[in-house]
């Protein structure tokens, strides 16, 4: 029958209208009150798919990446960064600028004196975080960065970039746990190695002692022989 296709299509539209209406009235009086509501969109979401930013926000997964941050140890206050320069070399936008620090004799030391990320040109690719061998640069989740001036507000210096390990642990619980685990294993392995070395040293000492005794005994023997 002519028109049946259109009716079928209208049925689809009607279904969408009702599901999104039902979804909306669920949160009476209003979905958008309160501000900063975090909306979780489960896999069985029906109805409203739009999120009313900024009153509502999405949940961000752990791997979410925006612009980089630099991590320092919350306890000691020491930077993790050793100024190896890998992140600056791998960055596709070439927006990382590092000045390596020097000791008083002019020898380079593994610390950065200046560290800039021009976040206006940063493309948020995350390669710097991926290739940093010291887990020192990671991607921040903060995405509300607008300012009025491009220079210098959007060129982040070390102070702007630095965050403590506690912040990192909170943002990246899984990665943090893995990192702790790796550190623990490493420490354990180190201790084991130390113990093994100590045991070996002991054994060596004992063996040497024994050899000396034997030697002494043999000498004694030979001297009595004479």
């Amino acid at each position, binding site marked *: 029958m002519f028109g049946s296709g259109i009716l079928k299509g209208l049925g689809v539209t009607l279904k969408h209208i009702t599901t999104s209406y039902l979804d909306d009235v669920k949160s009476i009086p209003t979905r958008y009150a309160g501000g900063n509501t975090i909306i979780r969109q489960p896999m069985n979401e029906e109805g409203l798919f739009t999120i009313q930013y900024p009153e509502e926000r999405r949940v961000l997964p752990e791997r979410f990446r925006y612009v980089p941050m630099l991590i320092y140890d919350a306890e000691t206050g020491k930077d993790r960064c050793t100024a190896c320069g890998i992140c600056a070399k791998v960055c596709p936008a070439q927006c990382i*600028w590092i000045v390596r620090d020097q000791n008083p004799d002019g020898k380079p030391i593994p610390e950065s004196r200046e560290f800039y990320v021009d976040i206006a040109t940063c493309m948020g*690719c995350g390669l710097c975080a991926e290739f940093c061998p010291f887990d020192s640069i990671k991607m921040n989740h903060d995405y509300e960065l607008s300012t009025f001036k491009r220079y210098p507000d959007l060129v982040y210096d070390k102070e702007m970039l630095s965050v403590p390990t506690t912040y990192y642990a909170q943002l990246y619980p899984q990665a943090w746990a893995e990192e702790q685990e790796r550190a623990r294993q490493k420490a354990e392995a180190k201790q084991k190695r130390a113990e093994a070395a100590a045991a070996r040293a002991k054994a060596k000492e004992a063996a040497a002692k024994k050899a000396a005794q034997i030697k002494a005994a043999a000498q004694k023997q030979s001297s009595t022989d004479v």
Partner: protein
Amino acid sequence: MSGTPEAVVKKFPHWIEKMSEAIVGEEDGVWIVKPNALRAVAKYLKEKKGYDFLANVAGVDNLLHPNRKEVDRFEVVYHFYSTERGGDYIAIKARANAENPVLPSLVPIFPTADFQEREIWDLYGIKFTGHPNLRRILLWDGFFGHPMRKDYHEAYYEEEHRPYNSRYPEGHYVSQEDRTPWKNNLVFPNAFDPEHWQAPEIYYEVGQDFKNIEKLKTDRIVVNIGPQHPSTHGVLRMIVGLEGETVTGLELELGYLHRNHEKIGERNTYLMNIPFTDRLDYITSMTNNFGYVLAVEKLMPKVVVPERAEYLRVIMAELTRAMNHLFAIGFLLNDMGAFYTPSLYAIEERELILDLFEMASGSRMMCNYMRFGGVAHDVDENWVKLAIELVHNRLPRALDEMEALLTTNEIMLARTKNVGYLSPKDAIAYGTSGPVLRGSGVPYDIRKAEPYSIYDRFDFDLITEEGGDVYARYMMRIREARESVRILKQALRDLPGGPVMGKPLPYMVKIPANEAYTHIEAPKGELGFYIVSDGTPNPYRYHVRAPSFVNLNSLATMAVGHKIADAIIILGSIDIVLGEVDR
């Protein structure tokens, strides 16, 4: 056979007799053909050998070639495939000298060369004799210079290759604008006089032949659509000749989004290009990554990709395809005048797919997920569970819903049936690929014709539609998305454990000197990467064969003779993304 290099004789014993006059050498498996024999060889390949699909035409500047003294400065490489037999390509190249680079155009034999040759003229300054319309295509007609030449320095040029030395260890920040003040980064023609300079003539007759169309008693007018028209899918400009409401000719102005992706790619290291490929077709960044890493892996013989990574790549690529096809249908509805509401129905599932991408890679659209030798991150069990739920329940339901909304809808039928017909012969000749080619009944899908990655392990059908019109291309996308769901079900079922990355590669990989063209079946068609390596950490030549760009070749043929409102739908049915067209 005299004068033909031994390697060529060995590789192509049967052909050589016919072609020995034309071939002057061989380089990395590519024949070097005399310029004046180029057409003859192309014709021979097409008519006698069945290589009917000219996939890729790319220019190369040999300025830094190791044997620069012996080779001519410019060359153009052609990659031919056979749509019937499938399999690997045959490549030929022809060279042109530096002073007056001219080559014969292949447009009379392969109309698909049209846009690609124009692009080479634009970016390399190689002229093609016999080309019907050799104008600049991506850059403005008044542009001075040819930016892909190796000695051309772009604005804010800093160094030949990245990483730049100024960043480390003495990286005191200097803004790009202060580093290269304005005027120091411009090139002017000799004796340039701004007072008397005249802008070039860029308004032209709309070119197609409209003899066959019945003459109406109306004036012929030219209407400019875009670059800001909401239905042009981005900043694309169509210049349409009209008689009444009937389209009599159509010309495209491209390049509003041009960034010279390829020049940036040649400055970058191989790794740095991965996030840049995200920005080609920004709807389908996963498949762009996929194509690029496959292309580079082809040049790295030792790299082995772990099983789990192969599966994850296929899963991401097929999720992308399903999502892209739904998206294309949604925006086709937009073009038909069903503004926004139904197209949002089509992209609800996309939201959930993007959530999955974000969980896996950290970003919804600019995924930057694949690496040489694997993928960047593993996914956990929860992710797999969500993906299974999506693939088994939601996606099939969404496709059913789309079909209920459209497939038998009388308005849809009236607007799309017999609109924008493209014959199978034309579809091949214009170099179209993907749903456009298969919608014209040509059974050519790279996943079947030359299976890459692990596509040969999955059970899925090669979909074709015979109609060749907008409706056929719509059906094509729905049915192909269903096949993607089929592949996804198998891949998620079989997903093995294990690592997702082999031996971690350094951030700067060196690739042995070689060249290769690699293509994959991206959602929009054949996405190809032509890479020439010279053994350094940066590609010597990096060329993207973008499916949207080449598919646009066929737009004028499809649109002429239809009403102007149909031209918009026809454009929508090609499914273009300007990030990829303009690069």
